[in-house]
């Protein structure tokens, strides 16, 4: 199968209500992200890992799948989580390591998702391990003849890991219903893509496996959504895995511990702000007449209020009791 590019049109399959919902998801992800940084800079949250610039792709690929599918998001995927129903409260409970944190009960750093009820598989920090889990999950689905798909996301830099190769190899040999979602934001911390691979498009990595590889404009929600829907259909039809590459830009430093001024120019960063996915989506809902300017403003206020409430709630919430740290090493 050859590498193809999907062009960013085909908004047709989603109705206006759904589009509004997607825009809200993107806005909520962005607002959570912004306020996490504020908390960090105020000394109230030890660590933040941003999603800024990647919301269109994240909401797009999550929305392109079914709730019965399996999701293995990586640490930036606030947009994926929000699309799956993760609330602002949940996000801030996790940020602060509180007992009620749905991802890990306060055990893991923020950004390490997992939510059994919503088919979000628990993730770790060492990058790229999850792509093999997605393959094993897909194998089990295929064995039982189910039509579920599993999807693992990772950064473009993480495709350099050995596990990436082993995962794509297994998936292509067994034609498994799995999507490898590369959120290509141009950098692995300070390392530009050119230091991670010799090819222009990460999707070219699919060629060595005889697998479909697709490069998508990841600042465009609709392109991201449609490419995912198509890849998932292929997978459900038994036509095997797809490597989906969403191209975009990491608008912020790698994390709250990083200072990106050491390795990239402000001009480069500013240039990408013109393609801010939130702005693009806002333009679309306004131009397409899906929302009025007043409705957009009201939505912003609503989302801000949700996040305000979430922060207050999370700050007041208790930590897990110390003795709980000894539980769940093994089955009881």
């Amino acid at each position: 199968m050859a590498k193809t590019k999907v062009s960013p049109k085909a908004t047709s399959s989603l109705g206006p209500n759904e589009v509004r919902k997607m825009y809200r998801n993107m806005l909520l992800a962005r607002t959570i992200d912004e306020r996490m940084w504020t908390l960090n800079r105020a000394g109230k949250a030890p660590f933040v890992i941003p999603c800024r610039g990647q919301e269109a792709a994240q909401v797009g690929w999550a929305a392109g799948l079914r709730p019965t599918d399996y999701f293995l998001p990586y640490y930036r995927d606030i947009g994926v989580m929000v699309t799956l129903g993760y609330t602002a409260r949940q996000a801030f409970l996790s940020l602060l390591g509180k007992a009620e944190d749905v991802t890990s009960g306060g055990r893991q750093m923020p950004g390490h998702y997992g939510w059994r009820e919503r088919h979000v598989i628990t993730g770790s920090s060492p990058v790229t391990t999850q792509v093999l889990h997605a393959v094993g999950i897909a194998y089990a689905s295929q064995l039982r003849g189910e039509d579920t798909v599993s999807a693992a996301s990772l950064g473009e830099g993480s495709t350099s890991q050995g596990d990436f190769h082993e995962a794509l190899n297994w998936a292509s040999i067994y034609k498994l219903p799995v999507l490898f979602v590369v959120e290509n934001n141009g950098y692995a911390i300070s390392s530009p893509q050119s230091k991670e691979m010799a090819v222009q498009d990460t999707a070219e990595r699919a060629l060595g496996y005889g697998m479909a590889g697709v490069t998508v404009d990841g600042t465009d929600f609709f392109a991201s959504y449609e490419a995912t829907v198509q890849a998932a259909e292929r997978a459900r039809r038994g036509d095997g895995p797809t490597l989906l590459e969403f191209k975009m830009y990491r608008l912020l430093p790698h994390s709250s511990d990083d200072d990106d001024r050491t390795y990239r120019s402000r001009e480069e960063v500013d240039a990408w702000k013109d393609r801010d996915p939130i702005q693009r989506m806002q333009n679309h809902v306004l131009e397409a007449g899906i929302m009025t300017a007043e409705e957009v403003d009201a939505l912003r206020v609503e989302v801000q209020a949700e996040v305000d409430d979430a922060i207050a709630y999370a700050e007041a919430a208790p930590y897990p009791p110390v003795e709980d740290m000894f539980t769940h090493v093994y089955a009881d």
Partner: protein
Amino acid sequence: MAVKNLIDGIREAMHEEMARDERVVLLGEDVGKRGGVFRASEGLVDAYGDKRVIDAPLGESGIVGVAIGMALNGLVPIAEIQFADFIHPAFNQIVSEAAKIRYRSDNDFHVPMVIRAPFGGGVHGGLYHSQSVEAFFMHVPGLKVVIPSTPADAKGLLKAAIRDEDPVLFFEHKRSYRLVRGEVPDGDVTVPIGKARMVREGKDLSIFAYGLMALYAEQAADTLAKEGISAEVIDLRTLLPLDREAILASVARTHRALIVHEANYTMGAGAEVAATIAEGALYELDAPIRRLAGPDIPAMPFNTPQEEHFMPNPEKIAQAARELLAL
């Protein structure tokens, strides 16, 4: 009860568990038509098909990582690593992933799976087909580490491992596969993980061992008995969680401890056994603890004299016991 080889115990356990529970699958290099390079899985692909007995592409991280995914989605995988020496590429998937999934998700997820691998030397395997790797995994809470020394335990412990809700590393001494014979109970008998086995009671010293070394310790105890020395032999069987109670109770009876393993001396399982005694039964000891282990060289040489010199054996064990009693 029929007399069988240790490897028959392994094969029977997999056979019965795959028949009993269709969630159980086996994956690994050459486990299908070839039946595994040691023939542990002979006949399984004919019985259960190549969707459940899976010839994996060559790559241990892939095998374990895919097995974790299977376990996360309702299967109970047995991942075979062709030789324990080749488990290292999968170290990250085992230590960072399998061991920590239940804990990190606050019990939301868990991975019931077994990783089987033949280990140990004395088969002209040279540096990379002779290693003992169990000690690495004893430092990893969330894992269980099991090593059978008899055909009955091989079967019973493997069945228990497959039914366990947590990841179990199951190491089989490759030299014992066809060397060690014994009675294997018919039917669905499991042996509990986490309990040491009293091989033989004694009163002059305790010998702690596992795998092939448990057999050798038993043979050494026979020799010593003829000399009037009464050695207690304990087969640890499970290294994690370690049966500290059984260790301390034995030392309280005999007041002398000899620990035997083939793995390198430094930071082998003997270190933890010795530390356990030094913390928990120090006042019981009448003599320093003694560890008899593989030497601290990178691995076992191929050539015959050096390989023989590397391996502990019944005579070396008996000699170490005599020396310990002379102190």
